């Protein structure tokens, strides 16, 4: 599903923020990515979501060696990845409903075909009464849930989440983790970057830890 071999990453002339990162994610696996702030977690996720090219090394996604994959094939690869951004990146001029529906629109689906799925998902994340609200009128936690719903609505093959429970209370956090687990049970490969030890301890998932840009596997979990 995902394979990194000796991947290094630096921004411009700066120091390497990732060094010789090598790992593989099997299809259907559930992995936590941990590490102190500045260790390179967000950068690693950016490489996995095709937001940045690596400075060196080999990345393979869904069987595509990115070094030789044509740029015009990237959009199709990106649509197989759901992303929960740390800063949510919601579109302020669209309602919660339309933000969540965006990946389905990009996939060419019609509103009458996806409206039911979007409503069901927003209800699941506890936003049934906030569907028409725009992000600036939502609380941080509500925005985070919209961002999560947007990431999972297309049932992606790979879900990447950067601190997805950072702004919600523990009840909601548990509910969101159950959502990720359900998605994982249906076949989605999940990687969550988090500091939340309670979240990690509550599952028996694999944990990879980044320290100074180097990867250390702490725990190999159950897929």
């Amino acid at each position, binding site marked *: 599903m995902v394979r990194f071999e000796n991947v290094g990453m630096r921004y411009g002339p700066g120091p390497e923020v990732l060094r010789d990162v090598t790992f593989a994610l099997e299809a259907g696996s559930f992995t936590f990515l941990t590490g102190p702030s500045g260790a390179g977690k967000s950068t690693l996720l950016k490489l996995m979501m*095709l937001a940045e090219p690596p400075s060196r090394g080999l990345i393979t996604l869904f069987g595509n060696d990115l070094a030789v994959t044509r740029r015009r094939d990237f959009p199709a690869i990106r649509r197989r990845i759901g992303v929960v951004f740390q800063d949510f990146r919601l579109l302020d001029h669209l309602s919660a409903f339309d933000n969540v529906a965006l990946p389905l629109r990009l996939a060419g689906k019609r509103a009458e075909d996806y409206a039911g799925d979007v409503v069901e998902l927003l209800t699941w994340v506890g936003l049934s009464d906030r569907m028409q609200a725009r992000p600036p009128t939502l609380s941080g936690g509500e925005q985070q849930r919209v961002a999560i719903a947007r990431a999972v609505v297309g049932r992606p093959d790979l879900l990447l989440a950067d601190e997805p429970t950072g702004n919600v209370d523990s009840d909601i956090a548990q509910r969101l983790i159950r959502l990720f687990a359900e998605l994982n049970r249906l076949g989605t490969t999940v990687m969550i970057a988090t500091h939340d030890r309670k979240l990690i301890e509550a599952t028996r998932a694999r944990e990879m830890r980044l320290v100074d840009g180097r990867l250390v596997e702490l725990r190999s979990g159950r897929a």
Partner: protein
Amino acid sequence: MSEVKPSGRILPRERGAAPLDVVIAVMAFLAALALGASLLADRAALSWREGLEGKLTVQILPPAHGDAASALVSETNAVLTILRTTDGIVHASAISQADEIALVKPWLGADALVSDLPLPQLVDASIRPGAQIDVAELSARIKAAAPDSMLDDHTHWIGRLKSLADTVIFSAYGILLLIAVATAAAVTFATRAGLQAHHEIVGLLHQMGAHSGFIARAFERHYAFSAFLAAAIGASLAALVFIAAGGLELAGLEPVPFLPPLSLAPREFLWLAAVPLASGLIGWATARLSVLAFLREIY
């Protein structure tokens, strides 16, 4: 479910580039004025040429000695006889004194003294369209029959008027070109400024797997319409100026003496519609090229 209203829009409805839209509207106003002026110059040149081409004028000066009045009459009759019997000339007539006084009135006024001036007798002749007249031979025959006459086939004036008309037309085209370039630059600038404000949206759509064409389409429609609308307002104001000029002329006022009417014909107004259409096209192309260039820059 019933309360959920999906939006068809990807871009925000609010538009942050209002001052630039005003610039586009003003540039479009000037472009439409220059376009209308070039149409008027073209029409003026044509009417000037048509007014002189195919015409001959014989001027018979009053003889300085003898019985000037009777000599003038006999020379005029001789000239008329020659002209009327020349193949290719369809009409020849002497201009009456009243008409001659009317001709000099704009320059000399209608004072009683004008009638005392020794005005030359003018004979006006029309050439059949397409007929070839040997002007030198005709001039010699007329000179022989009427020694105080001069034949003028207006070649000199037509040449000078053509130069003047060409200068006016090419000046109008030059101004039109400059304003068109400035308008294109304003539309391009407005579009790029708008895109700058929406980089976040472009980046997110790109990250979510939208094809470049999908993102470009969302922007090109938006900016093509914005540029079209702003330019349509400017061009409409210019059209109002030409309509007002036509209204002045209908009311008997002549905004610019010696020039043809400043009002545009209905068919010529259609040309003004080219300004917003071109503006919309520039907005469309700029948005598309800018979005595609931005997307090429990011991974």
